[in-house]
């Protein structure tokens, strides 16, 4: 590994280039998009060379001594979104720019750039800004992302929330935390992402696999969490947000402090802590649903235009109680629980977290270096290290009562290099290579057979993304990525299971040792995956665009899909992976039409996704064990066709009143079985109206309505033999709960405490009407209602 990093550094040094004659001039004006006024003090920087100009009071700028060819300019202004623009320079030119104001940034805070750039040319994208993040700082990543049309979550209770993009979740959704692809055992339905959303500045979501630079297997999409840009100004600033939460009787606090030096250096520290006790449904306490979480991150670096580096360490620790009533001993318990209207265990409120519970921590360290070479482009090197430890505590007997049932340690090293080549005429190219080593160690001291075996995994990938700026309006893109994975596992199989699955005939060579009841085996796999994307963007202006994109993506099976074997208590089922599972292949066509008029705007985004050899987990039978009968869920591969539509619109009815409307729907079909697919989100719409009075300390009042329709297309229920009832009983596990509607309220007001200090207080009420509801995508819907009314009081201090 060390040699690898060294080699990459060597490579970075080897590549140098020389210039040509540079005497061209670029000039023009910068205007405010909203009122067409000229902006004074806007900076126009040629990204590759660090040449820059500042606009005068007439918004005029002039850059001289530029080289011919394609250049990238960054236009920035205090309190405006930074704009990045490619310009083809052949002769002396005039170019005018329009900048858009931030919705919320105040003029006092001159240091944070909130620019969220597109990650792809033609893919469907959406973003969450700092202010969105702050409003939701009491929630988890899933809660925040739900504000985007087309994003839903797969939940286990209220605290474990996995984001799903266009109905796909888990290993099909990549999460990039500050440039690092999270390796946090995303394969489990009840494994929430181990990231602290309070530690990032903005989030960009790519719906689909078109962002090949992050990975080729993002069949669902990519969630890119980034830090905000640092301005080159000598300052010290920070913010603290405190939330008090009634439902769960707790709260959280998060603080960030940033020091920026004039010479491009910066240091940034962030910490957060959250504590909630048992949460409550409208009619009862959800016993053992408390959560305790803390995160810490530290980074420093130097961000020049020509070169820079960044070193970062972050730690995230979470302990989550699992609803006591959802811990199940056998299929008869499950029948009992499903038939009962209220949870079978309701205790008094407590802040304590008891078994069953999860305790997870995640370390992340990153080193990044970039340098721009005049005739080559920008080269970026990155090494990152992640250590994820997950402990799951069940209810156990005797001396094992305090022992974890699952104790997995996943270590990942990744090194990567990517190059943004300088433009060749109208072409620009981004290339990269990546190598990754991963090791999973399940601690045998659990005294429970390993859910996921010991394994080592080696990945290598390379990609190229080519963009062609046909003219001012049209941009075409094409990308290609190849990924190789090798898995080498050591796994114990119960001998009878090995034989029942037919592995003894097919994989007999993998048996290392016969221990009587169990076999030690050494499964090895190689996967070669290819991903490509091709698309076009037509953008007659900055505020109007039409995009079409086709992406082909392949995903290798994850360890759970290959190796699962055994009783999963939290789901009351036996889950069986399959060593024969191959990669799945997705073909997705996505179109997006966006327009921002002066007073209203919309985004209309239909898509069609066909997935070959889609890997899914579904009921396949029943097995009898000494604990009773259990439904068996097996991983199977089938073909899937999905069609969906995301729509979002907004309107500014006056300077004070604004409405927002989101709608999304997705239809999925198992084309082999010609039937519905499990866990597909139902149609839903969110509508909100907000009223803002700027004169009155930026007072903002907002009411939003959240309507989630019933999922009518679910697979059939399964029937199992109940030993107690001595007959086949229909297990009502697929029927979806009814349509529900929630009303939420929020208000916000800002106070200027001093020149540099500003206090924002927010008051929010979620589920105002205290509606009892259950959600189809919550795995605990069999056992209990979802959360009741919740009051939140937030204080935010910027200093």
């Amino acid at each position, binding site marked *: 590994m060390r040699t690898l990093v060294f080699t990459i550094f060597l490579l970075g040094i080897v590549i140098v280039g020389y210039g040509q004659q540079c005497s061209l001039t670029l000039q023009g004006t910068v205007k405010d998009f909203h009122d067409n006024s000229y902006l004074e003090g806007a900076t126009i920087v040629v990204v590759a060379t660090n040449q820059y100009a500042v606009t005068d009071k007439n918004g005029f700028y002039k850059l001289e001594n530029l080289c011919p060819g394609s250049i990238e300019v960054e236009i920035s202004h205090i309190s405006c979104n930074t704009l990045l623009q490619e310009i083809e320079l052949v002769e002396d030119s005039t170019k005018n720019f329009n900048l858009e104001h931030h919705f919320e940034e105040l003029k006092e805070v001159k240091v944070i750039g909130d620019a969220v750039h597109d990650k792809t040319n033609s893919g469907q994208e959406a973003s969450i800004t700092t202010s969105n993040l702050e409003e939701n700082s009491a929630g988890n990543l899933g809660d925040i992302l739900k504000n985007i049309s087309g994003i839903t979550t797969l939940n286990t209770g209220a605290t474990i929330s996995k984001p799903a993009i266009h109905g796909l979740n888990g290993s099909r959704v990549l999460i990039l935390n500050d440039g690092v692809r999270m390796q946090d055992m995303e394969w489990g339905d009840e494994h929430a992402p181990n990231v602290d959303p309070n530690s990032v500045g903005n989030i960009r979501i790519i719906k689909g696999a078109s962002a090949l630079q992050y990975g080729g297997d993002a069949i669902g999409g990519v969630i890119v969490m980034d830090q905000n840009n640092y301005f080159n100004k000598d300052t010290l600033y920070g913010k603290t947000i405190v939330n008090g939460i009634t439902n769960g009787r707790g709260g959280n606090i998060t603080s960030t402090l940033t020091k920026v030096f004039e010479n491009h250096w910066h240091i940034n520290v962030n910490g957060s802590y959250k504590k909630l006790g048992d949460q409550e449904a409208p009619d009862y306490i959800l016993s053992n649903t408390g959560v305790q979480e803390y995160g810490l991150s530290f980074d420093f670096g130097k961000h020049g235009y020509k070169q820079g580096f960044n070193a970062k360490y972050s730690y995230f620790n979470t302990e989550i109680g699992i609803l006591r009533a959802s811990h199940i001993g056998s299929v008869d318990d499950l029948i009992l629980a499903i038939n009962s209207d209220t949870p079978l265990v309701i205790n008094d409120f407590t802040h304590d977290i008891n078994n069953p519970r999860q305790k997870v921590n995640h370390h992340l360290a990153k080193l990044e270096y970039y340098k721009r070479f005049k005739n080559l482009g920008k080269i970026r090197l990155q090494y990152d290290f992640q250590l994820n430890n997950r402990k799951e505590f069940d209810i156990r007997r005797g001396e*094992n009562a305090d022992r974890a049932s699952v104790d997995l340690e996943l270590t990942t090293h990744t090194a990567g290099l990517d190059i943004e080549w300088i433009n060749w005429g109208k072409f620009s190219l981004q290339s990269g290579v990546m190598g990754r080593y991963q090791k999973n160690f399940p601690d*045998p001291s659990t005294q429970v057979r390993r859910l996921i075996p010991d394994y080592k995994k080696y990945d290598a990938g390379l990609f190229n993304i080519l963009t062609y700026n046909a003219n001012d309006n049209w941009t075409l893109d094409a990308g290609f990525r190849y990924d190789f994975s090798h898995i080498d596992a050591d796994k114990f199989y119960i*001998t009878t299971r090995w034989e029942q699955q037919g592995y003894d005939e097919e994989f007999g060579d993998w048996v290392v040792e016969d221990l009587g009841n169990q076999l030690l085996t050494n499964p090895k796999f190689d996967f070669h995956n290819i991903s490509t994307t091709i698309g076009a963007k037509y953008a007659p202006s900055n505020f109007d665009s039409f995009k079409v994109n086709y992406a082909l993506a392949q995903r290798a099976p994850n360890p759970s899909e290959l190796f699962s074997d055994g009783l999963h208590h939290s789901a009351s089922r036996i889950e069986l992976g399959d060593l024969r599972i191959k990669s799945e292949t997705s073909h997705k066509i996505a179109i997006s039409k966006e327009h921002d008029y002066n007073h209203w705007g919309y985004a209309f985004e239909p898509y069609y996704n066909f997935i070959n050899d889609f890997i899914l987990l579904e009921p396949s039978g029943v097995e009898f064990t000494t*604990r009773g009968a259990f439904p068996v869920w097996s991983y199977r591969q089938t073909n899937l066709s999905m069609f969906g539509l995301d729509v979002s619109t907004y309107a500014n009815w006056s300077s004070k009143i604004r409405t927002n409307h989101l709608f999304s729907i997705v239809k999925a079909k198992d084309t082999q079985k010609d039937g519905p697919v499990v866990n597909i989100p139902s149609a839903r719409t969110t509508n909100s109206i907000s009223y803002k009075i700027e004169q009155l300390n930026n007072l903002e009042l907002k009411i939003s309505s959240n309507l989630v329709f019933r999922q009518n297309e679910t697979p059939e229920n399964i029937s199992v033999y109940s030993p107690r009832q001595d007959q086949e009983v229909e297990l009502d596990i697929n029927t979806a709960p009814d349509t529900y509607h929630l009303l939420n309220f929020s208000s916000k007001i800002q106070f200027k405490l001093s020149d540099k200090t500003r206090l924002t207080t927010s008051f929010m009420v979620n589920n105002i009407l205290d509606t009892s509801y259950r959600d189809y995508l919550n795995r605990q819907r069999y056992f209990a209602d979802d959360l009741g009314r919740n009051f939140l009081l937030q204080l935010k201090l910027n200093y």
Partner: protein
Amino acid sequence: MKTIKFLSVLASTAFFLACSDDNDTPEVINEEETITTMNITLTPEGGGDVITFTSVDLDGDGPNPPVVSAPNLAGNTTYMGTIEILNESEEEPEDITEEIKEEDEEHQLIYEIGGALDSVTVTDSDGNGDPLGLEFTLVTLTAGEASLNIYLKHEPTKPNNGTFEGSGGENEFTAEFDFIVAD
């Protein structure tokens, strides 16, 4: 082009470096908590043949179903029953009965009868005086088919009404015996 060459060298270097890792064998786990076996000794009151019921599932959570043996019982007879619970998946079988006795307040055996059985009554109790269920009496009726289901509950609600629903907790072990009550 030189760069491309470099990159391919780099990728292969990474690959070979990574593959040279050593390979250590993980240790096997034999779950202590697995319950494989329930043996019931049924002694008729006033003398007669002692009958043994067994339910054994040596592969635990593996695919094979439990093997059940339940010979005929005599009609109109009261049997004194004692239960033995074992983990026989290990080389030296472990007696789980002892563990249950030690944690008697956290355990309970629940009985359900059907067919030609008159009653089942738990005769032992835990430290709080609530029923435990390792000992019981079973009264048969006249000839016919009969069924006896026994569930071992962990952390049941105590005291309770002795039914599966009423006792709550987790079901750790299920044994179902279908047999004949002979004349």
